[in-house]
């Protein structure tokens, strides 16, 4: 059945690209977890918040306009200008760095040496607070995010594959851009952590706090840096998901999809987050394609979690995670 085979190929390709987006979200989790041992439940909301802020700045929306109007009885909503995409991204990044600073200053600085579960609870609180602030700042309606990335079917791939196999692959241009951006982002992150002073300091902090202090590393600075980088990753994820399905509350729920990705790849491994994302992406698309029709479809909703569950039983540290060895 060559047709069936080609169709499966197309499914796998699309799965890989969906996986890239999962990996992007998972990456944010891994960065913070590695450096500070905090499982940041708010990573998904950070992506939503970043996307909301980006749209808001681009559209020249007045932040907190509803609140301002309600208090002062005014009717302002827009500044009346449009900010170019690149500038808006830079401005959003400034906001994310500010957020990182605030998170460190007002929350985690006061929770040093606390139980991991406490830190985790704090991030849940943070998620709700940020959701609320995002709503008040920019409004709750679904927004369209268009920073000029190409969208729709890639004609070249369609035509080429049609000529070669007699069957045109449907690949979305947006997925291709997301893949390219993700590759650049991961490359940059790895280069940063391997070859720069701050990257080395970051790895040092992730390894041993006490030793890091003794060589002159400020933990506070490193944690702000890590949260900023996680904010940047969240921004990229927010842009990609936002461009794909609009900026809306459900964006924060993609964080839940990152959980099985992390269980597969391991919570402490950047390559793990990527491979995990790809496996989940391909796995759920292929499963839906092959097994879906037999069980009435909609397998994409649960496939990832079942796969993660199986992994938890047989390899709890994930594919790339550090092996858990208890020494007695």
């Amino acid at each position, binding site marked *: 059945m060559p047709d069936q085979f080609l169709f499966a190929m197309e499914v796998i390709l699309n799965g890989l690209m969906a996986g890239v987006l999962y990996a992007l979200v998972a990456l944010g989790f891994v960065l913070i977890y590695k450096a500070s041992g905090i499982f940041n439940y708010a990573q998904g909301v950070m992506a939503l918040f970043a996307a909301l802020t980006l749209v808001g700045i681009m559209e020249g929306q007045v932040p907190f306009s509803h609140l301002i109007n309600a208090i002062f009885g005014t009717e302002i909503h827009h500044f009346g200008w449009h900010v170019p995409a690149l500038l808006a991204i830079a401005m959003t990044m400034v906001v994310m760095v500010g957020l990182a600073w605030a998170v460190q200053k007002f929350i985690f600085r006061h929770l040093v040496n606390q139980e991991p579960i406490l830190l985790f609870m704090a991030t849940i609180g943070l998620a709700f607070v940020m959701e609320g602030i995002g709503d008040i700042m920019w409004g709750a309606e679904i927004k369209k995010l268009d920073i000029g990335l190409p969208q729709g079917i890639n004609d070249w791939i369609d035509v080429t594959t049609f000529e070669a196999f007699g069957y045109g692959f449907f690949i979305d241009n947006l997925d291709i851009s997301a893949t390219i951006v993700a590759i650049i982002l991961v490359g940059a992150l790895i280069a940063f952590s391997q070859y720069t002073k701050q990257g080395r300091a970051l790895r040092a902090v992730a*390894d041993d706090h006490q030793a890091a202090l003794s*060589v002159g590393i*400020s933990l506070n600075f490193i944690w702000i840096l890590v949260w900023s980088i996680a904010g940047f990753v969240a921004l990229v994820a927010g842009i990609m998901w936002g461009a794909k399905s609009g900026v809306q509350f459900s964006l924060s729920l993609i964080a839940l999809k990152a959980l099985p990705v992390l269980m597969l790849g391991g919570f402490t491994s950047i390559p793990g987050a990527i491979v995990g994302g790809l496996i989940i992406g391909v796995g759920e698309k292929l499963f839906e394609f092959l097994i879906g029709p037999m069980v009435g479809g909609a397998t994409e909703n649960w496939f990832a979690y079942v796969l993660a569950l199986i992994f938890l039983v047989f390899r709890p540290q994930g594919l790339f995670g550090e092996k858990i060895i208890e020494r007695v």
Partner: protein
Amino acid sequence: MSGGNYKTEDGRQIGGTLMEMKNITLRFGGVVAISDISFDIHEGEIRAIIGPNGAGKSSMLNVISGFYHPQDGEVWFRGERRPTMKPYQVAKQGIARTFQNIALFNGMSVLDNVMTGRLTHMESGLFSQAIWRGKAEREEVENREAVEKIIDFLEIQAIRKTPVGRLPYGLKKRVELARALAAEPKLLLLDEPMAGMNVEEKEDMSRFILDVNDEFGTTIALIEHDMGVVMDLSDRVVVMDYGKKIGDGTPDEVRNNQEVIDAYLGVSHD
């Protein structure tokens, strides 16, 4: 014997006061770990702090390196009173240390570990690091050279690329020393550098400590249990017991101090 410059038995010239601890008292709740201790460290000397278990030696080292903050007393460094500082600020002042229970970055290679010791010498900002141009690149090269020198000096070239987690204990101790040395510290603190080592490793480590002091002129303050080693290595010794200072002087002076002998050998209370 304290204050002023002096010459050691082997003829090295010892400089003026580098660090002075004045009436340090450190309490943990109701427990007094250090009570009213004063001593000084001169430039270029090897200063030992000894005492039985629980005497407060490590606590004293932690006070010097900023991990603990004493309730009373003053810390003077290079002629200035030091305000309360975080450990990373102390490190930036030029005080490097090793730990009793080895605190290395286990996931990183030996080379990377030692490179972290150079962090206090890197000034290029986040941005130039991120784009990896100009100052950042130049600094990395300079620091690599400094680090290679230390790796040569401590004879750990063969394991440069090995992840530290895989090394045997004695080598880990040496890597930790290399990392501390990489900072080119004005004062080097060694917390039991020879704990848990066999005789051969102890001899190696002693040689390295003497060489470091000799070649780089680094001032060293060390804590050690092994009395023999301490007496051989150090120029002057502080003896602590139950958080109090019971002796201070050259190894010979300390060896003949009745209170010190009592503390170490026990004394009959009849």
